[in-house]
């Protein structure tokens, strides 16, 4: 029998069961989905739950300022602002990262990427970060221009985080048609290379049932643990993410 690795409990109802206890510690997981699929909420709940368990949890928000992230989080019952004050939860945006890098401008050049990884490594080590979410890795990859650079970036980032014992979710934006399931040619990331390097892929999507959309979650792969391959319905509630198995006869549209 294969011995399973220590797990990082997400604390999200249903997800830990799907993952047979949680994400294997040190894994770098691609959290893929189209806009509105629940990626940011799931990522934040993962961090907040970790912070509540005493693990230093960090969000690196590439797409919006941390003040806006906090404003959105206040709508969720799982959020406790004291976690920020008590330095268990850190919400960092690009402005704060630029400041650490000594960069004043708003756009990176390719050569800024290595310092960016270094500064992330520095943050993870100095703060003893156990959980990290980068929202989104797609926005960073967008600046890298070539697939080779993207592959290098994701590989180096994953290695750095894993070596530091950090369990990370890299939010990956995909277009809606690519979020519908395991269809030939479907990719789980904007550039199609991130998924090959990541230790796990959690795909958030949607199905249509008689004209109504239902959000779904599907763990496509997760190294280091057995996991369910079933598609689940994902509900975004004021309490956070709730998951329930998708009725099999309701899996098809129409």
């Amino acid at each position, binding site marked *: 029998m294969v011995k399973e690795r220590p797990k990082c409990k997400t604390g999200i109802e249903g997800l830990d069961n799907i993952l047979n206890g949680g994400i294997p510690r040190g894994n770098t997981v691609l959290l893929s989905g189209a806009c509105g699929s629940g990626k940011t909420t799931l990522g934040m709940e993962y961090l907040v739950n970790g912070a509540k368990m005493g693990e230093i949890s960090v969000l690196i928000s590439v797409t919006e300022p941390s003040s806006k992230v906090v404003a959105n989080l206040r709508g969720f019952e799982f959020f406790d602002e004291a976690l920020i004050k008590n330095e268990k939860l850190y919400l960092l945006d690009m402005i704060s990262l630029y400041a650490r890098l000594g960069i004043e401008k708003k756009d990176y050049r390719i050569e800024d990427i290595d310092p960016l990884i270094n500064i992330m490594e520095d943050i993870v080590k100095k703060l003893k970060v156990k959980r990290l979410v980068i929202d989104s890795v797609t926005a960073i990859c967008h600046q890298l221009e070539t697939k080779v650079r993207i592959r290098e970036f994701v590989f180096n980032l994953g290695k750095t985080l894993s070596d530091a014992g950090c369990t990370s979710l890299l939010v990956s934006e995909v277009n809606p048609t690519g979020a519908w399931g395991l269809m030939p040619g479907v990719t789980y990331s904007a550039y199609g290379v991130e998924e090959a390097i990541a230790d796990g892929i959690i795909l958030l999507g949607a199905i249509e*049932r*008689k*004209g*109504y959309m*239902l959000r779904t979650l599907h763990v496509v792969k997760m190294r280091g643990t057995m996991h369910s391959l079933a598609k689940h*319905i994902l*509900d975004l*509630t004021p*309490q956070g993410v*709730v998951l*329930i*198995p*998708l*009725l*099999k*006869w*309701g899996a098809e549209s129409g």
Partner: protein
Amino acid sequence: MDDIDKKVSQKIKETKKYEVNLILSDINNYFRIIKGMMNYLVTERGMGGVYVSATRPSKAMISRLGAEKINMDDVFFVDSVSYMAEGPPASVDNVIFIESPTMLEMMMVKTDTLLRKAKSPDKFVFFDSINSLAIYNNENILSEFIHVLVNSLGGKDVYSFILSVKGETPKNIETLLKMVCDNVVEIGGE
């Protein structure tokens, strides 16, 4: 208390938690049977719980049951009718709206969510009704849903009732309900 109230009270007083009861209702006494159920569960037994409404909008049921002097303060509604009938409803305390009766999984998720809100020590789930769901869902998915629903309710520390109107539910579905539910209670039309 009228005859139907007494009849309902007599027939469901032996029901137990962790059991799922199929209530086979007479079509002519549909509302009176629901009133009798709520009267027994809420007024006589002091329970709170979740009313899953797939037949009539929650607003109508709250209003009608309130008019019967049933205190609905600790009864929470999962309403899959209003949105479809009237468009996006305004937010109402004690009600979660679901966009369509085809979103069967959401009914279960929201029932769980609302059960946590009910404060009464003893709780119920009342599902109104399977025949309404049969209008919007085909037999395959409805059968699967019933199977999952009954197994889910049967594992909860609550009194569970699934209403089905006699003669209005597809035969195969009614047969399945009788097979998977712990008790079958026929009320009205005997």
